[in-house]
């Protein structure tokens, strides 16, 4: 077992870990540090800047835009979690049935997840167009709406539009993860339950659901993390507008930094997002590690 402790393996382990610490860990800490500093275009390149305590945070919390966007983010993330986990579970159950093409069709859905976020945004912007968009056309043809819906320019609807597009984009990925856990449940359990007289609903309720619980929790965490990353798609669709109605925290942070050049404020908004994502990540890591050990 001498080779197991060889120095080469430790170099192999540390190289990627240091890479990630340098290009993600350090920037995140740098961002947190900036949120306590007064950052101007003039001192942007320096590490030491005037320390301003919680001033940036006070300004952020007093800003009604921030409060609106904070609530938006919670809505966006939770609708995504509920939508993707429930639709993903339904789709996974459907494709778990034996029929011709089940695996192929299920795999094909993953095409949406492979697309660049910007393409997804551009595509849905075209489909959501008020006058010539195909979404309004289909809704009108089915007599579901009275007049055209201004999907992206009506502040009351923009968040719904953005959320729908994002659920469409990532749901197949959630479904694939749930499907994998579903296949791992031993078929004998179902057969035994069927012999005992359990119907399909009882079998789902008492066998599939308990077995899937850790996976569903992990998927919910992953969806939260993915949804907090939904920058490209929203940037292409609405830029967070109109009136920040479809804005989310990472995008707001980016806008403060690169459009208003208020880097300290942007960093403070970012710190809120970092804390939120980090908390979810802890739950995720606990779930995954627990699963791996079991």
């Amino acid at each position, binding site marked *: 077992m001498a080779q197991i402790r060889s120095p080469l393996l430790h170099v192999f382990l540390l190289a990627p870990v240091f890479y990630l610490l340098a290009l993600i860990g350090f920037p995140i800490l740098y961002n947190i540090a900036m949120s306590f500093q007064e950052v101007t275009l003039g001192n942007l390149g320096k590490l030491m800047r005037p320390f301003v305590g919680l001033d940036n945070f006070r300004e952020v919390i007093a800003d009604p835009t921030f409060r609106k966007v904070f609530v938006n983010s919670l809505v966006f993330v939770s609708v995504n979690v509920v939508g993707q986990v429930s639709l993903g579970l339904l789709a996974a159950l459907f494709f778990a049935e034996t029929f011709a093409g089940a695996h192929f069709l299920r795999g094909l859905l993953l095409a949406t997840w*492979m697309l660049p976020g910007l393409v997804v945004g551009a595509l849905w912007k075209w489909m959501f167009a008020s006058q010539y968009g195909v979404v309004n056309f289909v809704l009108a043809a089915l007599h579901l709406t009275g007049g055209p819906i201004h999907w992206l320019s009506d502040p009351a609807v923009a968040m719904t539009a953005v959320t729908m597009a994002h659920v469409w984009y990532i749901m197949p990925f959630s479904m694939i993860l749930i499907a994998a856990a579903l296949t791992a449940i031993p078929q004998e359990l179902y057969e035994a339950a069927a012999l005992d007289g359990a119907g399909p609903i009882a079998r789902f309720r008492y066998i599939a659901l308990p077995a899937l619980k850790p996976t569903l929790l992990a998927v919910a965490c992953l969806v939260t993390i993915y949804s907090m990353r939904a920058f490209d798609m929203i940037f292409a669709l609405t830029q967070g507008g109109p009136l920040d109605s479809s804005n989310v925290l990472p995008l707001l942070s980016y806008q403060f930094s690169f459009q208003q050049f208020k880097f300290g404020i942007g960093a403070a908004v970012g710190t809120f997002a970092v804390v939120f994502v980090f908390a979810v990540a802890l739950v995720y890591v606990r779930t995954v590690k627990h699963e791996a050990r079991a």
Partner: protein
Amino acid sequence: MTVGRSTFLSKRTRRLVFSVLGFAGVAIYLFPIYWMLISGFKSSAEIFANPPTFFPRAPNLDAFHSVFVQENIARYLLNSIIIAVPVTLLTLVLGSMGAYAMSRIRSRLVDVALVVVLLLQVFPEALIATPIFIIFKSMGLLNTFPAVILATTSKTLAFALVILRPMFLQVPSELEEASYVDGCTQFQAFWRIVLPLMRAPLLVVGAICFAQAYGQFVYPITLLNQQHLQPGSVGIYAFIGAEFADWHRVMAFASIYVLPILAIFLLLQRNIVSGLTAGALK
């Protein structure tokens, strides 16, 4: 779950109904991709036709022509590839090193490393972009491809490590131990015995990382402000930034841009799905 439910529907009818429903459902779900692909073949009059045509009435290549001639899409695509190829290679090298080490070292160090990787992969790029911009600015790296390549690899590498680790765990270490008896060094064992066995998983991870790097938007738009350096994602963004857009041209641009990704996906669909199911939650 099909046991005991085939009382009034025969098994065959049931399967047929599911096939038809499944096919129809997937067709509706993927309709937006179809809509993108056909919109580029419409004329500037037909794109705004009401009711819209679900198959181009007079398919033509005008939009594609203008995207190549006026928008210089070739330049954008070349830049996307110049960024995505090194990201993929760097990710595969660092990813297979790390995943191999994680599957062979038996100490708490691996647990710590794994938790660090899992925690670091969650931060949105939009938040990392600002500090990366400042750091790279002071290093004089702005407006260079290496800046975007280094930053993008941090995203793909974490993903690759998570997916590859369980794959490397499946390779029995007896194979390497036998080679040590024959006088192989650890590096030779990794290079000549383990890596060739990992060809399929590395292909899957490489394909996904390539797609992610190829579609990357946040880092290029933050770190590159010269048009001749910008990749396809930024090209599309510039195109739809205006209130009014020539949608047939935008969709032609988008179709050409995603073609390599869709091709890779269709070729490797089976492997990508099984790779994700084996690795993504372990």
